[in-house]
């Protein structure tokens, strides 16, 4: 399909001259994008780039089955354009974001309201009006921003008839730290640290995406050994978070043995990352053009030993979990997202794979070490909490096997290169399969090679809508486990 696209084709972690990307007037560009989406492409990114006092729209599409990415853009314009959301709901939040950042009005957008900007007092997000269900029996439940646990803030507004949730609207923006705005004119001194904290539990994935963008802009790659190490750290990150999620899911259905065990083992996986770089979340490891620490053979051997113990512990804890009928019945047919819905709203990561969709950057758009060592994709049909938990436990197993298989294959050589300057007037895209799903970074440089625009899309940006849909018709008391089964990032969304 991708071979006949009018969009510019490129591979993952590659760059393309900005001036040579095909451009259309806005309305035609929206139509062209819709055409590609109809032919099986998926919207990875949709954002504005300021140009001569006006704005260009840019679309990054993924042809997953063709292993290709495609980029197109509009000519600079101001005012309005026909909304893409009307026919392709996966554009819904992207268009709201562009409206908020650039004032471009998507004509016909069904739910145009702020994403993260502050209210007129500057002390809370401007949430706008919430969708309301009318009727004598209907009541509204408001939850957050501060939640009843050690967790990030966000606001949930439920429309309920008794226990049943008719509609859930999720209002975020509380975590907005101005990451993208600060990147203009960058990279700056703090840029790498900010990349590592875009979503702090996804440090390796975001740092790797940023490093890949910098390397693509410079027309080079990190040394193979660094690519290997990044891939190892990425799987350790996945193991830690998935194990933590299994524990949290067990906790939410009061299955305490698995909760206690997984909570502890999660820490064991984090400590393995800390063995490599000193930090449990992998900060300070990935840098553009390499890695700041090496994993020497002796250290790698120790890591392997501890990894095997942790994997065996996980296997046992997860077996308790699946063996308990009380756990299984609680998860089956709860919080279902149907495959058609998942495709329509552009779900990514384990949430998409739990709807039977084969979608994994490591498999569809392999870059870095994943070109040489492939991880199998874990898919489960059903779309319910059971499926989301099942995909996680399959991925724990497969990430573990992947690490045991790939760890001894460390290529010889240096761990980093001398940094090279980024090319001017160039666009670069990098996708990385983080533990929540597709992390997408896009950079556009100016005439001296500084960031003219830097767009970050955390998988949560695609997936929060999935949680809303999962709650439709569910009991409000199921919200905690539904939420846990997605476990999305607030700060990764709010940036």
């Amino acid at each position, binding site marked *: 399909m991708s071979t006949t696209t009018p969009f510019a084709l490129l591979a993952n972690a590659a760059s393309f001259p900005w001036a040579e990307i095909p451009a259309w007037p806005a309305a035609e560009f929206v139509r062209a994008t819709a055409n590609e989406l109809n032919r099986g492409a998926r919207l990875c990114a949709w954002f504005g780039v300021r140009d001569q006092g006006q704005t260009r729209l840019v679309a990054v599409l993924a042809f997953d089955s063709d292993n290709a990415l495609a980029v197109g853009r509009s000519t600079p314009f101001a005012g309005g354009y026909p909304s893409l959301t009307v026919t392709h709901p996966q554009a819904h939040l992207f268009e709201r974001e562009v409206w908020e950042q650039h004032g471009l009005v998507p004509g016909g957008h069904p739910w145009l309201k702020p994403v993260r900007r*502050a209210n007129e007092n*500057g*002390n*809370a*997000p401007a949430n706008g009006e919430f969708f309301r269900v009318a009727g004598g029996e209907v009541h509204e439940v408001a939850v957050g*921003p*501060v939640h*009843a*646990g*050690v*967790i*990030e*803030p966000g606001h949930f507004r439920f429309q309920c008839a008794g226990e049943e949730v008719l509609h859930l609207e999720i209002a975020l923006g*509380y*975590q*907005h*730290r*101005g990451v993208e*705005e*600060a990147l203009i004119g960058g990279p700056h*001194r*703090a840029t*790498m*640290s*900010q990349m*590592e*904290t*875009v*979503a*702090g*539990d996804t*440090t390796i994935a975001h740092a790797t995406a940023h490093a890949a963008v910098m390397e693509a802009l410079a027309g080079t790659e990190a040394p193979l050994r660094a690519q290997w190490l990044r891939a190892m750290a990425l799987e350790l990150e996945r193991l830690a978070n998935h194990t*933590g999620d299994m524990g949290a899911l067990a906790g939410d259905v009061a299955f305490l*043995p698995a909760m*206690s*065990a997984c*909570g*502890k083992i*999660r*820490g064991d996986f984090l400590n393995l990352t*800390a*063995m*490599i770089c*000193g*930090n*449990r*979340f992998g*900060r*300070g490891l990935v840098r553009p053009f390499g890695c700041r*620490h090496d994993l020497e053979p002796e*250290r790698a051997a*120790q*890591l392997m030993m501890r990894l095997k113990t942790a994997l065996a512990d996980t296997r*046992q804890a997860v077996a*308790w979990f699946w*063996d*308990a009928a009380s756990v299984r019945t609680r998860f089956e047919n709860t919080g279902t997202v149907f495959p058609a819905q998942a495709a329509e709203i552009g779900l990514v990561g384990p949430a998409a794979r739990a709807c039977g969709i084969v979608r994994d950057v490591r498999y569809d758009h392999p870059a870095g070490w994943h070109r040489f060592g492939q991880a199998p994709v874990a898919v489960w049909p059903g779309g319910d909490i059971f499926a989301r938990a099942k995909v996680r436990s399959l991925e724990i197993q497969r990430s573990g096997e992947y690490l045991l298989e790939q760890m001894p294959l460390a290529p010889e050589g240096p761990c980093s290169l001398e940094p090279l300057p980024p090319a001017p007037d160039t666009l670069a895209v990098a996708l990385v399969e983080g533990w929540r799903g597709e992390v997408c970074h896009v950079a556009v440089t100016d005439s001296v090679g500084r960031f003219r625009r830097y767009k970050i899309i955390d998988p949560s940006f695609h997936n929060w809508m999935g949680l809303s849909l999962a709650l439709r018709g569910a009991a409000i008391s199921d919200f905690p486990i539904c939420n846990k089964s997605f476990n999305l990032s*607030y*700060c990764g969304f*709010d940036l």
Partner: protein
Amino acid sequence: MFAIDTLIHRLKRGCQTMDYPAGPAPALPDRHGGALRVDASKCADECRACLPVCPTQAISRPAGKPMQLDLGRCIFCAACVETCPAKAITQTGDHRMSVLRREDLLLGEPEHETVRLAHALDGKLRKLFGRSLRLRVVSAGGCAACEADTNVLGTIGWDLGRFGIQFVASPRHADGLLITGPVTRNMELALKKTYDAVPAPKIVIAVGACAIAGGPFVGHPQVHNGAGSLVPVNLFIPGCPPHPLTILDGLLRLLGRLEKNSTGNVPVQKPG
């Protein structure tokens, strides 16, 4: 497998809670480095090599004055340690670094080479909270790492409950707040409301470089550069994120639960 097997497995695993603080503290990962020690007298005249490598502008050296490193802003990347030609900045491997006053995190001058560690709450507060402290956690722009390493203290390995410390689901049930994140402007109202809802007397604990001084986001117009400008902070726990051991040390130190063995307890480092 039957339920009885689950129980047997569970029994076989035994007690997994660490001995600390009765026994020795677990070692920090060898590449962590621990708290920094800064001896500004070693700096060459007007040397500023470490200033531009610090991502969070934690190091300053006004003309004619000694260099100063603010451990509150530090994200422990060790770029300055690697850069310093005079070895004026060194890693101590010490997990202990919580302080009561913001200025106790400023390092460099003679007798201020290391942090001035927190001591216990005095009199009435210690009597009230020393054996039972309930905290409400507010993440205000936190990236989920400080949250995760605070949360981990509740797991079986650390078992925070044995010290009478617990995270609660309502500010009305709390003795104080534990704040993470640089405090985004969009969380200003929520943080103030939560603080006001905690009954007095109350304490505030700032966990992580962001909550102390804005961390990597210092200076962004969208954030407040830490909790201190909005609420009075009683305990600062540095790190990005602080190691769980550092957080636990800070909490126990504040409650006076560590004094008997709070000296000479720096763990010996082993690789891994």
